[in-house]
């Protein structure tokens, strides 16, 4: 035991003794790897959870066979299956767009994690404009979706991509506006600052309207039912990823769940006080709150029918944006008076 501890201490000493020109990039790389590992681990759990949860809702069991108990290894088996599948690039696709689109969809979900505080000290970078950064990074995914839809050279994909563009652009606005109330109260755009501002009361209680708007807009940005129009299976076959298979398709899947996790983490941080909480360590609170949102979003997904594209635009522009503006005005008035 002592030998291991000594070796570890030696390693740490060696690490911090490195010259800054090596240390800074190495630290960055290690953080990226840690975040990537965290995402992949969670996506594996999320996919399994979604299957079990939907199974529970639909009075069936979900995966049971691969790995006991309760098919815990099902996702791993599926991942291996997708990895060894033939890499099909259909004739007639726009090769460049087709090949890099899955990576472009996945990257924003990775970027968001750079500013999410896991605990008081665990954070890649406590950016002072973190919320703006989150909004900017989150809206990049639509580029990848549009690239895949256009590059596939398939009419269903193109329709899905056009829907995605319309959807994400119009729901980005209420999503950002709904967070403004929180920023006004907290007086900070940094996520650590927002967590600190919630030490007495969570913002979900101070900003209920903002929370509801954020939740709806997030569902739309995540392409989750009732807003899963971009891949609406019964309408567009599979939407933007119709022509994808194997590992490239898996990247879309990974991106979808990574985005779900990132959005849940942001919601937990902004509205539920993030890692702060009594008794338990911060990381436990953070994971619990994040998974609360994950479950909430899954619950909605497996209950609701799908809304139509024009109705969705109506909800966005005619209801959510005015409501978000009203929320900002009310927040401002209250802050002025108090």
């Amino acid at each position, binding site marked *: 035991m002592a030998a291991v501890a000594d070796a570890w201490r030696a390693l740490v000493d060696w690490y911090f003794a490195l010259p800054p020109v090596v240390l800074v990039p190495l630290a960055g790389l290690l953080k990226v790897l840690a975040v990537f590992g965290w995402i992949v681990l969670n996506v594996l759990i999320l996919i399994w959870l979604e299957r079990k949860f*939907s199974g529970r*809702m*639909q*009075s*069936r069991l979900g995966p049971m066979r691969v790995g006991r108990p309760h098919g815990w290894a099902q996702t791993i088996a599926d991942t291996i299956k997708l990895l060894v599948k033939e890499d099909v690039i259909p004739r007639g696709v726009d090769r460049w767009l087709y090949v890099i689109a899955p990576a472009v969809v996945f990257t924003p979900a990775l970027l968001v994690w750079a500013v999410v505080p896991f605990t008081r000290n665990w954070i890649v970078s406590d950016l002072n404009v973190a919320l703006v950064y989150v909004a900017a990074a989150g809206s990049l995914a639509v580029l990848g979706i549009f690239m895949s839809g256009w590059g596939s050279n398939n*009419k*269903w994909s193109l*329709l899905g991509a*056009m*829907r995605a563009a319309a959807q994400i652009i119009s729901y980005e606005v209420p999503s950002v506006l709904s967070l403004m109330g929180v920023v006004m109260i907290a007086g900070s755009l940094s996520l650590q600052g927002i967590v600190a501002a919630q030490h007495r009361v969570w913002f979900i209680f101070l900003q209920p309207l903002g929370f509801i708007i954020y939740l709806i807009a997030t569902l739309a940005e995540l392409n989750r*039912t*009732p807003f*899963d129009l971009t891949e*609406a*299976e*019964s*309408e*567009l*076959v599979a939407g933007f990823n119709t022509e994808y298979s194997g590992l490239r398709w898996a990247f879309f899947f990974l991106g979808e769940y990574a985005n779900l996790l990132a959005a849940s983490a942001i919601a937990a941080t902004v509205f539920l006080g993030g890692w702060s909480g009594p008794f338990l360590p911060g990381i436990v609170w953070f994971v619990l709150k994040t998974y609360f949102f994950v479950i909430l979003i899954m619950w909605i997904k*497996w*209950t*609701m*029918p*799908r*809304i*139509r*594209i*024009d*109705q969705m635009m109506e909800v966005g522009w005619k209801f959510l944006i005015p409501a978000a503006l009203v929320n900002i005005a009310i927040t401002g008035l209250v802050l002025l008076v108090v």
Partner: protein
Amino acid sequence: MAELNDLRLATGGEKPELRDVVTKDVGEEEILVSMGPQHPATHGVLRVVLKLSGETIVDAYPDIGYLHRGVEKIAEGWTYPQFVPMTDRLDYVAAMSNELAYVLAVERLMNIEVPPRAAYIRVIMAELQRIASHLVWLGAFGTDMGAVTLFLYCFREREKIIELFEMASGARLTYSYMRIGGVRNDLPDGFVEKARDFVKLMRQRLKEYDDLFTGNRIFEARTKGIGPLTAEQAIALSATGPTLRGSGVAYDVRRAEPYLIYDQLDFEVPVGKNGDTYDRYLCRMKEMRESLKIIEQCLDALPGGEVMAKVPKVIKPPAGEVYSLTEAPRGALGVYLVSDGSANPYRLHWRAPTFANLQIVRETTRGFKIADAVAVIGSVDIVLGEVDR
């Protein structure tokens, strides 16, 4: 754009009407999309050629024939009883109703009177089948709307009906239970009790579906006012079943030309008002409740006695013809039989209700969105085995 719009037709371009109507005059900003035959929302191998302007449908042409097996011709080479199993493979979601339509036609041709117990059993089976068929429709319709969970619930209840059918006939999908002159065997022990339990359970579950789906704001927004069909249009297209009744025409073969014991039973014929997708949906939901009522009455009044009439060993109907109409779950199912006095039918024609009902897709989807076309096709409740025959 012209290259993009070069859609090959299933029949090698031999359908002049489709080619003219849909593929000609494609505007500068319009695209042709082939929805099906491999598409999740077309319930089998239906293909709809869509002419789209953005997401808006300019024209939609249902292209059928991918499941054609020449069943009507096959019938001419087979004896009358041999054809009963084949009827199961037409509308495979409602096999009992198909058998009933066929054996009724033969019986009418031969003037066979069915024993009362057999008539009651047939009605019970036909109405159970109606519920099972509507459950499949409801589940598929929910999936079309993006509500996947409902599908599992519907199939859970349908399983109970299939268990009942399995008790009686030994089969789960293709029953061959109806025979010319009656039914294959009497109801097994415990069937009546199990059927009663099902009726009770189903009433609760229908309430559950209403809670989950009927009052849902999104569902109403997706169906109300979508694909409206006027009563005149519906009659002109010879639509039948819930597709017709949704438009407000109270035509039900069970009432209009009663067969078996339907004239002695107390049930209502639900009709809609606006003829939109929502009304067609409501009609079917109410029909399931009426079917439960009919099953309950039949179970209460089930008489004893034989389940098969005296029929000759070799069925040779006298020369002549008959057109026999029954109310299948999807609409009026007609069987036209011509006999030349031999043991094989001279000609059999199957008036499939969904063949006619499918025609409303083109009339009702113009100007709506792709998502609405999916809803309309779902609300028509097609089974391609029957459309193509």
